[in-house]
């Protein structure tokens, strides 16, 4: 049972480049989330998705794009990376309802933008 995986685990890129972070879950959870974690800010929600082809903005969506063509995948794209997007990115999934509001997190992607 692979659970939820993220790739790459580490990424170094340069300002202005496009970067895509991948997230894949094997549980068929309907909801998926992208967070960024920065010192002093905790976890902040970037985007989330309630189902395939349904996405919505979170707290800090600027500079990011998401898509969800398949239930199991939820890629996050930085269209033109900036130094302020240096962070650790976490993907999570959940199946709400029936008492299952718990979120399951991937291992994270550490992104450094030079």
């Amino acid at each position, binding site marked *: 049972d692979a659970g939820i995986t993220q790739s790459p685990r580490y990424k170094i890129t340069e300002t202005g480049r496009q970067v895509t972070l991948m997230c894949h879950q094997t549980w068929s959870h309907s909801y998926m989330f992208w967070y960024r974690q920065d010192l002093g800010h905790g976890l902040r929600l970037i985007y989330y998705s309630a189902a395939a082809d349904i996405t919505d903005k979170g707290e800090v969506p600027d500079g990011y794009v998401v898509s969800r063509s398949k239930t199991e995948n939820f890629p996050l794209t930085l269209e033109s990376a900036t130094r302020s997007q240096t962070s650790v990115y976490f993907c*999570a999934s959940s199946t709400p309802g029936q008492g299952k509001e*718990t979120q399951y*997190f991937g291992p994270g992607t550490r992104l450094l933008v030079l």
Partner: protein
Amino acid sequence: SQQGEEDPQALSIQEGENATMNCSYKTSINNLQWYRQNSGRGLVHLILIRSNEREKHSGRLRVTLDTSKKSSSLLITASRAADTASYFCATGPGANSKLTFGKGITLSVRP
């Protein structure tokens, strides 16, 4: 903006002691959850308490919720060195599964 605010920001205790961490929030909630994050890893769910519950136990964990004060506490009894981690509270409105996380508490358990 953060919904949950944990207190203290950092806690250092001796192995075997109890650790108490607090979380306050601002708006009405459907549930409150606590997560643990070991260094360099993703968050792991510990326990969920609903707005109509006052106390919940899971192993060495005890969570209380006071909706009148908009606060929760997480108690870890008989702490172990392996409990060293960051702990986050997260509040959920219930409608769309979104959670709002606090900034976290760093717990160090000295052997």
